């Protein structure tokens, strides 16, 4: 994972073409959601050892945000998908 990422739009690319933002399982809460929900969203991380969904942006390529699903210990990548598609599927 940490060497090559298969961008769904551009193909296999080196790590340095990407920037990484963090946990992709977090969903920005509704403006009316509780303080706790907002604090959790901004500050709390599940940080699992194992399967994890992470936001990577292909900054030097297509500039799309991607959801990279991978293992945080073995670094095996299970899937890379477009973040907007994932967000739409999640109903955002």
């Amino acid at each position, binding site marked *: 994972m940490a060497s090559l990422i298969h961008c769904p739009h*551009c193909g296999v*690319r080196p790590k340095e073409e990407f920037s990484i933002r963090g946990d992709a399982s977090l969903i920005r809460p509704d403006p009316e959601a509780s303080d706790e929900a907002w604090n959790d969203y901004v500050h709390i991380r599940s940080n699992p050892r194992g399967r994890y969904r992470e936001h990577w942006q292909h900054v030097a*390529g297509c500039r799309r945000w991607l959801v990279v699903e991978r293992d945080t210990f073995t670094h095996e990548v299970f899937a890379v998908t477009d973040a907007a598609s994932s967000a739409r599927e999640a109903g955002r």
Partner: protein
Amino acid sequence: MSRTYISRHPLDDLLPLEPGIRAVDHLDVPRSSAIVSVMAMDGEEASVTAGLAASGDVSIRFTGPGEWLAVSQSETPESLHRNLSLLLAETAYFVDQSDGRVVFRLSGPNVRRILAKGIATDLHPAIFEVGTSSNVLCGHISINLARTGENEFELIVMRSFAIALFDDLKVMGREFDLSAGFSVRG
């Protein structure tokens, strides 16, 4: 009082005015190109793709989903912008980048070995085929790379990085005595 404004190319002081001796591996720099960013409106990606494919003389470079650079050596920025607007009316947005991008054309038997010094993408012709284009990192600079022939590539870079990319390409090509010059035609 009327005025005329003379346009400058970023490499004006770095490349000779007259073409010099051309090595087998050569970097050709068109002095000007018409380049337009094309962004498909939501849901219009397919129709814009089809429209661009039918745009004739214009080279289409993929930059991202629903986004392309349209490049032409024969049209002016204004005419390219106008023609695309007519062709793809109500389906895409356009931003003129003719002054914001610089085109390099690299050709010769060693181009793959030269580019491998900066670009991680596998440029084997069976993998990065003629006609393919994509944004890639070349060294530390993001460019659009297109394969225009077995041993011919076109690199489009942001204007502010043009000199830096040119310097990098010269270093990458020094092993093969890469030559460079403005296009005779352009």
